[in-house]
């Protein structure tokens, strides 16, 4: 039985899970949750994700939420049919994957999600206008984080080491949107970050999953 992802194309967290499923060549069904009708807060969906968010994930009797936890489960379940993106055969390598996943969730996300909300969500879904002050402040924060990434990526090919991992891929959902806009310069101006991003964006799974998203 194919696994099910309950989510939405504009949801970067949903895209994170879909990326992992595609990387592993897994069969899945995407069940769209309609935010415009408040479906995400409806009792059937809250039964899947008690915070009324997307994605939720179903594999037989198992129901999960939180995109990074779902992704890790997917990467383990389909381990034999795709790249080794968690490196759990090595205590130290998997720890480095965990470090940069935390950095992504804690440092990177906070800055870049604010830019996404102002420059994509507001105009596309609410017909609103970006708050340029928020955009500028968030861009400055993201720049500082990318300085750390530039230093890191000048020492190792990918974030967790010289191997591609889920820590790198987890950055794709938001970054895909931001490099389509004026803040692309934050990535273009940092050569190692730029090369790293281009490597991620060239992956077939990336192209498959980002077609049909708001800024594609």
């Amino acid at each position, binding site marked *: 039985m194919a696994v099910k992802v309950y989510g939405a194309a504009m949801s970067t967290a949903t895209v994170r899970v879909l990326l992992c499923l595609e990387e592993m060549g897994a069969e899945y069904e995407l069940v769209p949750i309609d935010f415009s009708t408040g479906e995400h807060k409806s009792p059937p969906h809250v039964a899947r994700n*008690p*915070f009324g968010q997307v994605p939720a994930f179903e594999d037989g009797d*198992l129901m*999960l*939420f*939180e995109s*990074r*936890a*779902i992704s*890790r*489960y997917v990467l*383990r*379940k389909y381990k034999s049919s795709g790249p080794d993106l968690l490196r759990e055969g090595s*205590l*130290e390598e*998997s*720890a*480095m994957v*965990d*470090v940069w*996943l*935390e*950095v992504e*969730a*804690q*440092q990177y996300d906070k800055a870049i999600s604010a830019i996404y909300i102002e420059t994509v969500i507001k105009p596309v879904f609410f017909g609103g206008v970006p708050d340029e002050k928020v955009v500028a402040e968030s861009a400055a924060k993201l720049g500082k984080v990318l300085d*750390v990434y530039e*230093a*890191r990526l000048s020492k190792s090919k990918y974030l967790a080491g010289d191997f591609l991992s889920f820590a790198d891929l987890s950055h794709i959902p938001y970054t895909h949107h931001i490099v389509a806009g004026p803040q692309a310069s934050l990535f273009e101006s940092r050569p190692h970050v730029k090369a790293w991003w281009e490597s991620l964006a060239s992956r077939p799974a990336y192209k498959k999953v980002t077609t049909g998203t708001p800024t594609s």
Partner: protein
Amino acid sequence: MAVKVYGKPQAVCPQRVMHCLVEKGVPFEFVLVDIDAMEQKRPEYMEKHPFGQVPFIADGDFELFESRAIVRYFAAKYADRGPNLLGRTAEERAKVEQWLDVEAISYSPCAFTIVFNLFLLPIRGLPGNKGEAVAAMEKLDKVLEVYEKQLSRTKYLAGDEFTLADLTHIPVTRYIVEHCGLAYLLDDKPHAKAWWEDVSRRPAWKKVMSFVASGASFYSP
């Protein structure tokens, strides 16, 4: 060579790491980083931790930062001793990771805002932002309602055993309950309250609190 934990012993994230080490019976040396004097932002420290935060650990030659990555590492390294902190099956592991992410993304940001404004700033003689604290309390209360539902079905967050998912909540929750006067948030949530009373009474956590109070540098199980 013993594990070295760098940070301030009263700080939440280093306490998370110490608790995991004590649960697993791993000795460590605690090396003070004076965060009140912003030592974590000095170049020498930032060579090790590029974001200038605590904790940082060294396990022999292997160095790590981000407390949740650190506790996952030790829970995996010492999987064969002490309590099982990561779940026993792929499904249980996924539940542990789900609630770890809830703590990181939905619980702790509210909790930290409360502690910062109602405790950390006032003890430095600075005014906390009451409005921010109240908004965070309202958010946290809603999050705790979700926890109450889960904990009415399972004894701990990820199932019927204590795991990392419960452990990472403890240090900041103690500040909320004991230093910010917010124990009442649990009063209308009997399962969450029982969960808090259970996890905060774990012998390993009590040892962490004694260690912090003692000002000692070396912990031996």
